[in-house]
């Protein structure tokens, strides 16, 4: 039985040593090189005596950054990916929560780490990738790696991914080997990944969406091309890139696919090799799906759904019929070895033959992550006992997503129970933006809304800041994808009779005033 994810890479590096595992178009690593470099750094980590500790990887998105991730795993530790997209304040918050043993940097990030306030990193060692990846491998040092792996079990953490937290502090979702193995086994089967697959990766390495390309790759010997981020602004260049690298499989956030569809890109250029298109993380308008299906009539289109807390994706729907523009593409049914319970308002489970009754989507299975790093309270709030079982412990994760079954018995996502949104594929708590903004003394009242139709984050506030100052202040604390797209300064905030901010009224004001 497979209990450690590194066994995938061990086998693939033997079977396809010289095949490209990861490339960003410029730098590349074969499977043998990937394993070799991760071993070199892992040896150094083992020598330093770290085991079962968090190791932060703060590097440019690149094949080398992936090798650094695996070095943490080969040494019996777990990783967390930091990114230059994150403002300093956020990096400090994450480091504060995590207290990593080591931060592995490259030339582009080491100066950022040096700015991090000293009380956060006094216990943390800072390593340079270029140096530690040169560590010598001996038969003795290989034994240290073997010992570390043999010492681990499949419930030990593999990574921590930070997601938006409603209180203003990001939450660290901690996932173990078993959950990722469970996910990757099922996903590779669903996407029919093998050594001929060439992925075009879009997701950053700091979200769990990148598990798809990274781990199916080391399992099957497929290749992943890390697509430079700026290609996603220019659709013709993006498709040219896909063709140039013979990319045949993509798993992108829906907004990236919508961008290509929206500008009639396929009238200029079509993907030549693409046969599998998976999308998800947010609603994909049927109009745009149809444009893709017309352009690629023989390709498979698969909708994926799942929260970070249930490790990667939990359910899928392969498009197999025509959809009208006002229909919603189902999220389908649960992956193998995963169960989705739709729990109604009265606490009972809604069966799949009962259509159009809304309930909260709850998930159980090996996919369930370990919970939030160093936050037992939030963990026990969301990971709760299965209401159907009263005689032994059985956890489910309450997603906060509302869903219903359609007449085909397929699950359909409806909306959130709270103020969480999906914007450009990123999961964001609107209340985190509010809480962060309210920290400024110049702000008296703040309310954040989301325009679902146009995909815009709207910030309304009362305070001394001009809109320019407001955005500047937020830029220092929040990642770019969380910044408001429109900022409105108000004289007075509309309030409900009991004194709360009237979100409905604000939305009316917006819809009225926005031309």
């Amino acid at each position, binding site marked *: 039985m497979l209990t450690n994810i590194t066994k995938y890479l061990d086998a693939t590096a033997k079977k396809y040593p010289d095949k490209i595992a990861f490339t960003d178009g410029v730098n590349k690593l074969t499977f043998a090189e990937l394993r070799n470099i991760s071993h070199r750094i892992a040896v150094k980590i083992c020598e330093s005596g770290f085991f079962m500790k968090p190791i932060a990887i703060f590097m440019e998105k690149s094949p080398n950054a992936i090798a650094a991730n695996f070095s943490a795993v080969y040494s019996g530790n777990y990783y967390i990916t930091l990114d230059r997209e994150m403002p300093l304040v956020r990096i400090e918050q994450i480091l504060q929560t995590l207290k990593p043993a080591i931060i592995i940097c490259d030339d582009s990030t080491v100066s950022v780490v040096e700015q991090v306030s000293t009380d956060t990193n006094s216990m943390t060692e800072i390593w340079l990738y270029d140096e530690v990846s040169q560590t010598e491998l001996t038969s003795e040092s290989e034994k240290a790696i073997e010992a570390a792996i043999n010492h681990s079990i499949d419930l030990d953490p593999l990574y921590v991914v930070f997601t938006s937290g409603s209180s203003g502090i990001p939450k660290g979702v901690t996932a173990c080997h078993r959950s990722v193995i469970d996910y990757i086994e099922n996903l590779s089967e669903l996407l029919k990944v093998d050594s001929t697959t060439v992925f075009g990766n879009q997701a950053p390495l700091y979200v769990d969406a990148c598990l798809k390309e990274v781990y199916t790759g080391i399992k099957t010997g497929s290749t992943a091309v890390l697509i430079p981020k700026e290609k996603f*602004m220019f659709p*013709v260049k993006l498709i040219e890139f896909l063709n140039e690298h013979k990319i045949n499989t993509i798993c992108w956030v829906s907004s990236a696919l919508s961008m290509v569809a929206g*500008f*009639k890109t396929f009238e200029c250029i079509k993907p030549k090799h693409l046969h599998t298109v998976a999308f998800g993380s947010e609603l994909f308008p049927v109009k745009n799906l149809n444009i893709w299906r017309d352009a690629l009539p023989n390709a498979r289109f698969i909708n994926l759904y799942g929260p970070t807390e249930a490790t990667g994706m939990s359910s899928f729907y392969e498009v197999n019929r025509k959809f009208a523009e006002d229909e919603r593409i189902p999220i389908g049914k649960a992956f193998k070895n995963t169960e989705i319970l739709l729990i109604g308002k009265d606490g009972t489970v809604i069966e799949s033959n009962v259509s159009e009754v809304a309930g909260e989507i709850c998930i159980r299975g090996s996919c369930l992550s370990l919970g939030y790093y160093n936050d037992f309270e939030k963990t026990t709030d969301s990971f709760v006992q299965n209401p159907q079982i009263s005689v032994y412990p059985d956890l489910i994760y309450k997603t906060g997503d509302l869903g219903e079954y359609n007449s085909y018995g397929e699950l359909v996502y409806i909306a959130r129970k709270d103020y969480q949104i999906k914007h450009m594929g990123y999961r964001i708590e609107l209340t985190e933006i509010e809480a962060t903004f309210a920290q400024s003394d110049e702000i008296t009242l703040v309310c954040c809304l989301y325009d679902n139709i*146009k*995909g815009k984050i709207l910030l309304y506030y009362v305070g001394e800041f*001009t809109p320019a*100052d*407001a*955005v500047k202040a937020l830029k220092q604390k929040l990642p770019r994808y969380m910044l408001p797209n429109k900022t409105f300064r108000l004289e007075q905030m509309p309030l409900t009779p009991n004194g709360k901010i009237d979100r409905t009224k604000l939305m009316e004001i917006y819809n009225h005033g926005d031309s």
Partner: protein
Amino acid sequence: MEKLLKILTDLHPDVDFVNEKALIDDNIIDSFDFMTTIGEICNEFDIEMPADKLVPENFNTVEAMYALIQSLED
């Protein structure tokens, strides 16, 4: 031109659009807000943006954007 500047400043109140000459290359407008920006421009000027005009050169400066808009209006 003023209409364009107003759209851009509404979306990015913190950016000095008159003087920035490398909006795309310097990552001042990035992929998170580029689509919103294009959407607003198309709406306000009632134009359609063909995919082949979506290249960095057309968006690095306000002047380039304005020239593109004018060519699409005709």
